[in-house]
């Protein structure tokens, strides 16, 4: 699951389980570089799930992991690519 680090990739491998996500926005608002946003589509439960964007409005993903820490639904993970 852990990818090798490449300069072309964001620092973290951020992965969202869109069916699990409830679109609560918490990861969105804690992500300082704004690398996350809600998608306009609905998932099966009727929520707009979150998606990760390579580069946010305010910079790159810092691999801070806060999106993982605040998610109440275990729907998002952030794996630092620099961690072996």
């Amino acid at each position: 699951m852990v990818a090798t680090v490449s300069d072309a990739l964001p620092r973290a491998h951020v992965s969202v389980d869109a069916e699990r996500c409830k679109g609560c926005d918490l990861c969105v608002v804690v992500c300082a570089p704004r690398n996350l946003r809600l998608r306009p589509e609905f998932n099966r439960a009727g929520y707009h799930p979150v998606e990760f964007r390579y580069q946010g409005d305010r910079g790159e993903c810092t691999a801070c992991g806060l999106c993982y820490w605040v998610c109440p639904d275990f729907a998002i993970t952030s794996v630092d690519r620099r961690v072996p």
Partner: protein
Amino acid sequence: MSAAVGYATKWGALPTLTGAPTHYCAGCEHGTLTRLLASAIEARQARERAVLVSSVGCSVLAHEYLNVDAVQAPHGRAPAVMAGIKRARPDLLVFGVQGDGDAVSIGLLELVNAANRGEPISIFLVNNAIYGMTGGQMAPTTPAGMVTTTTPNGRDVATTGRPFDATRLLLGLDGPAYLRRVFLPVAPTGSADVFNARGALDGEAAIRHAFEVQERGGFSFVEFVSTCWVNWKVSILESKRYAARVLAPLFPPGLYRDRFGVEAR
């Protein structure tokens, strides 16, 4: 702050989570806490000796998500059930999640007595200032003036009393060894659309400390100031702002007692 920031694990891969989707409302701290418990249990490698006591409230299904042994307690009685388990099996790591209605209203006697006896158990209180599971009635912790289904004109402290501060009440007893209050929701920062995530990080640390205290023979209690946007009838983010504005001053976060000095380590 926890060293585990960016902790490289995935839901479901945390063996202490079952992976079942939660029934919690979107953005609710009950969900966040579940994962924090899982990581703290794993940090202690305690999954096989952990026993969760789930109380009646939104946390009643916690055992569906936490992949540990579990016993469900009648409403309010979790501290007694936990003490019963621990007295019979001191080798187990016994912990429970309670709501504010559960712990501070109907179950106050059980909480106070377990605390006074210093039972070596860990209680995690989700204080969302309302009865979540039953649809938004006044809780003992409801702030003055808050509209709930049983206080349609706002809580009137003249007839219903002032909000109860469970942590302070326990502080009046000699029994507890560890008393900590954490503000768990994402909290507004200087910047209008940015929230901080300290609560989750502090929260996991507090849980780990609580477990440490339990295994050293002390009673540990962590109160998580939380939200319930569904029953507060506001948006998710507004609920976090309200919690920061109204609840945090009413229930100030902090370390209230640390008899064994586990936070100093």
